[in-house]
């Protein structure tokens, strides 16, 4: 245990999920998950595909109403209406980017300011000084955020025309516009190249430096372990482990969850007998999945555990 995680809960808790369970009919997608995020903390949430990470996110933000359990933000229980959750100070991004594609970059961020402005229809129709002032402040704040994320020069572009990496950034800027105390990022680096991933990493650190706690779902292990003070592992809807990067990386159960059970004696003869097919088949099945050469970061989660018994340990050692 390093100092960061032990310090963080002591200061004060931003988010506290208590026994969150989400059932869809007979399927339990999330089962009794407890999670806390302290202020100024970056917490990672990892787990194989279908582990219930995004469902858990949706429970936190009110898009789903959890079957059991409570979610509270800074000590008060969060509403079950998503727009009130955002108003309370929890903002999020989406796994598959959900920008307002036909609005400009600036307008997207201005929409994010919705909960922090009050001007209603009458104010818009009468255009009093209050309205103009509020619009100006909103725009200034939005421009600050665009500067912060490095999109200021694209303010008048339509969001749909931005390159992928910038769309991700814009989504973060839009979420930040609601002045959240906690930012939930759902796979912020999915589909990014290593250069963009590093830039996102810096961005998240800069967000934390501004005092916003971050909870991030990610499959890129290097990104998670570089960034997060604490990592929770979700497997089949349940929290398996929670701790620092070292603790999680060293945990056998995590490796098992991602890559299948440790290779036992019954598989070793096969490996010894014909190493050639196992060495050759994985790259061919693997090739369409990640962009280029299979890297250690992205490979483990991209393929189901059963497919690749041989490569598992080698992929994880660095």
């Amino acid at each position, binding site marked *: 245990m390093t100092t960061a995680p032990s310090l963080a809960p002591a200061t004060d808790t931003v988010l506290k999920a208590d026994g969150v369970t989400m059932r869809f009919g007979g399927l339990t997608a999330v089962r009794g998950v407890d999670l806390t995020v302290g202020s100024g903390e970056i917490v990672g949430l990892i787990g194989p595909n279908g582990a219930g990470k995004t469902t858990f996110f949706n429970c936190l933000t009110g898009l789903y109403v959890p079957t059991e359990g409570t979610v509270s933000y800074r000590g008060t229980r969060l509403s079950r209406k998503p*727009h009130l959750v955002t108003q309370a100070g929890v903002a999020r991004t989406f796994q598959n980017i959900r*920008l307002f594609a036909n609005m400009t970059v600036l307008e997207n961020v201005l929409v994010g300011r919705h909960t922090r402005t009050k*001007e209603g229809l009458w104010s818009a129709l009468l255009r009093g000084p209050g309205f103009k002032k509020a619009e100006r402040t909103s725009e200034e704040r939005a421009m600050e955020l665009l500067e912060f994320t490095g999109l200021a020069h694209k303010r008048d572009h339509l969001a*749909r*025309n931005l390159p992928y990496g910038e769309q991700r950034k814009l989504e973060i800027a839009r*979420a930040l516009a609601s002045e959240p105390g906690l930012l939930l990022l759902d796979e912020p680096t999915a589909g990014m190249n290593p250069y963009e991933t590093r830039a996102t990493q810096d961005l998240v650190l800069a967000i934390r430096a501004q005092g916003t706690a971050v909870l991030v779902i990610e499959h890129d292990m290097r990104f998670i372990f570089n960034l997060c003070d604490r990592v929770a592992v979700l497997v089949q809807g349940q929290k398996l482990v929670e701790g620092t990067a070292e603790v999680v990386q060293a945990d056998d159960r995590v490796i098992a969850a991602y890559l299948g059970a440790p290779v036992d004696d019954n598989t070793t003869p096969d490996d010894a007998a014909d190493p050639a097919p196992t060495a050759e088949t994985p790259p061919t099945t693997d090739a369409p999945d990640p962009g280029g050469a299979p890297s250690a970061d992205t490979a483990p989660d991209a393929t189901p555990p059963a497919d690749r018994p041989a490569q598992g340990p080698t992929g994880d050692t660095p």
Partner: protein
Amino acid sequence: MIVMTTDTTTTPARGLLPLPERTARLTTAAGALVTALSTGLAWTWSSDFPGDLTYNFSPAGLQLVTLVGGLLTLLLAASALGVRGLQWLTPAGRNAPTLLAALATFAATWFTLISIAVQLGGLINLEPGGLLAAVASLITLLGALALPPDTPGDTAPAGGWQRFTAVLAASPVRRRTRELPSWAEILIIAAAFAAGLLAFTYGIDTDDGAPFVGYLLFMVLAVPALNRAGLIARLTALTRNHRGVALCAAFLSAASFPFTQDTDQYTIIGANILIFATVALGLNVVVGLAGLLDLGYVAFLGVGAYAAALVSGSAESALGLHFPFWAALLTGAAASLVFGVLIGAPTLRLRGDYLAIVTLGFGEIFRIAMLNLNGTTGPDITNGAMGIPNIPNLEIFGFNFGEPHEILGIPVATYGNYYLLMILVTAFVVLVFRRAAASRIGRAWIAIREDETAAIAMGINSFRLRLLAFALGAALAGLAGTVHAHVVTTATPEQFQFAGPQPPNSAFLLAAVILGGMGTLSGPLVGAALLFLIPAKLDFVQDYQLLLFGIALVLLMRFRPEGLIPDRRKQLEFHETGQLDVPDQRLPDTDATLGVTKAKA
């Protein structure tokens, strides 16, 4: 074979006819000149043909269309020939607009001459002037057909149709070479709106039947010609720089329409167009901004009309009240607002299709309820199918709207008064639309339309905002309904149907919004004007009216899905054009950043 391939790759793209480029241009220009001059001669000897084309040296009726077309073609051709001082006419394409203008002139001229021959019985009815016009416009067209495409493709298009579309293809608008002073830009805007008023007034004043069809043919081809030339893009850019001036110019030119009319024959059409357009703009708040499909919108116009009819002193009104106009106006708007909230509150929790079905039902329920509140099948409130007739004319400060007046020394007919009143209502609705759209509320509406889940996640209370849009749209329709009741002087259930041959119905309203351009200010206004004018003028095709209308809609949606006056967003959505949305002045900026990223890489 080898010769052929090298031939196709090296020679510049040809026009549709094999003529040298310069010859083609000169032919076009000369033909256009002669076409224009030919309108100075008599085309027929008999004044039986509408418009009376029998005078020498005095173009009339459809000859004016040919004259304008000939001059337009001549100017465009001269600009393409490189005549100094005319370069501003073609900031985008040169040849495509010339060809379209020549085509428009040819179509209008030949249509006129053929209908003269058909209506009066034989070619014998054509005077030499008419024959000259026919030959000259044909030569113009042939010359224009030989012009090469504006943007030569990499490979010569193979098929005839491909070559045709290549010749008509649009080309990007060039950057402006010099800036005009502000007053000159304002003058240009004023001139453009004046020209628009002239064209519109000519259209509204033409006789039904052949002359209107000729006018329509010409406009359908000439407006794309101006568009291909890049003039419309230029004008749009100018109006964007001077929004206030452009709005003033638009309203001044719209308000001056009744002063050009001596009788009520066309001012009533004008007043009805404004009512229709105002309701369409109200619907645009609901459909265009908030993305709620409302198929029963005309019911809110009906609620406003009935509410106003009940309180405006009609002898048959069950209430027997006679409110002053402002109170009736507020009553109409408030009644619609109440109904909007009543219908919206339970249904706006639904998404998409369900809402459309509920609104469709509401529209019909309203109409049938009005039919049944007749004293036998229900309480006697609306007088059933008879409606509430004899709504007295408005009188504001002793100004009776039912009588002709002289305003500024110019006589204005009865419906001209209502037209002017309606201009004020339209201006109010335009103001509401503009201000609502460009605000926190408007952005939230667009966000809901774009992606409701993301909008909710951004803290937008989607139900409340949708209800707000619905109620605002309803109130605006109620406002227009009040004036509608006074203009038609009766409120009957049959005026407020889902679909029918007469414009104010839900289907036509929706069509006006979509045809004009969803989410824009001027789109629904233009769409509504066309949708009202064309059916009103094409009375003679009565039986086929809806069929033709349907075909026109299908064609428009096929070739211009974003509407006549597209929202910038929509235009980009339907035509993937890469980075064309980048505003002019920011182009070098992005180039610089591109360079930087390249340098970094």
